[in-house]
């Protein structure tokens, strides 16, 4: 993935967006980062800008992460977009639901920079 790749972070908790942003900047030197506070705002951004990777929370008001994932996968222009779910919901049924919906990666909160880095390294390499 190129350094100017656009990453969309979707989370209703601004501090979590800040934590992920800092990890992406420090570890991957990625600086083209956009934030959205729910699935509705993210969906609008996806139709205005070219995004290369989505990192998305599961539980959010208005439109949840899983609902956004399903919409993305159903859209012919966005269907192949890498989508990483970052969530406190690590129960088996959640992982299965996200996998069935076509999630690219799944990270359970709390996570360390190393956890996020490891998962993204795999995804970013696959994208190259």
């Amino acid at each position, binding site marked *: 993935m190129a350094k100017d790749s656009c990453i969309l972070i979707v989370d209703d908790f601004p*501090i979590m967006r800040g*934590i992920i942003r800092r990890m992406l900047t420090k570890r991957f030197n990625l600086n083209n980062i956009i934030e959205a506070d729910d699935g509705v705002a993210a969906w609008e951004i996806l139709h205005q800008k070219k995004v290369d990777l989505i990192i998305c929370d599961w539980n959010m008001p208005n439109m949840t992460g899983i609902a956004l994932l399903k919409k993305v996968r159903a859209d012919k222009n966005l269907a192949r977009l890498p989508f990483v779910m970052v969530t*406190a919901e690590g*129960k088996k049924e959640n992982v299965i639901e996200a996998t069935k919906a076509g999630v690219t990666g799944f990270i359970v909160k709390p996570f360390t920079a190393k956890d996020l880095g490891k998962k993204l390294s795999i995804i970013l390499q696959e994208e190259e």
Partner: protein
Amino acid sequence: MDVEDKVEDKIDGRLIRPFINATLNVLKTMAFTEALASEPYMKNKETANGDVSGVIGMTGDHNGSLSVSFPENIILAVVSNMFGEEMKVVDDEIRDAVGEITNMISGQARQELELVDVSLDAAIPTVISGKNHTIKHISSYPIVAVDFVVGEGEFSSEIKDKFTIEICLES
């Protein structure tokens, strides 16, 4: 319910330990903060031991709720450590952080509970703030409290206080 009631007489200890583990892990992982857990004890007061509390309802094999109550100095230190920036006042950002911490503790505890075949789902957390606020659990279920003494972190070297989680579960 009497404060001298023994926890083990009121609730299965296997339901409590995952919440203690999750609290320690969330603090350590997201806020780089070590904490020391007290022995669980029965609680019969509605008043919270803190200034900002997150409360989350749970349903499934056991119905109930989890609350996490922080004194102002501790939550400011914890969020400062999480964010890498010193936080000075309890504002919406801090209240959001308490909701998120509560959510993460609940999520991780429920994941560990699955290992002992206990399945719980959680609602969206709510946050209450203010001195001596009260927390309403379902009063007919036992309420177990655990205090956590916070150790040193980048922003918490002067902290000598504790925060409390309360687990109210149908036994």
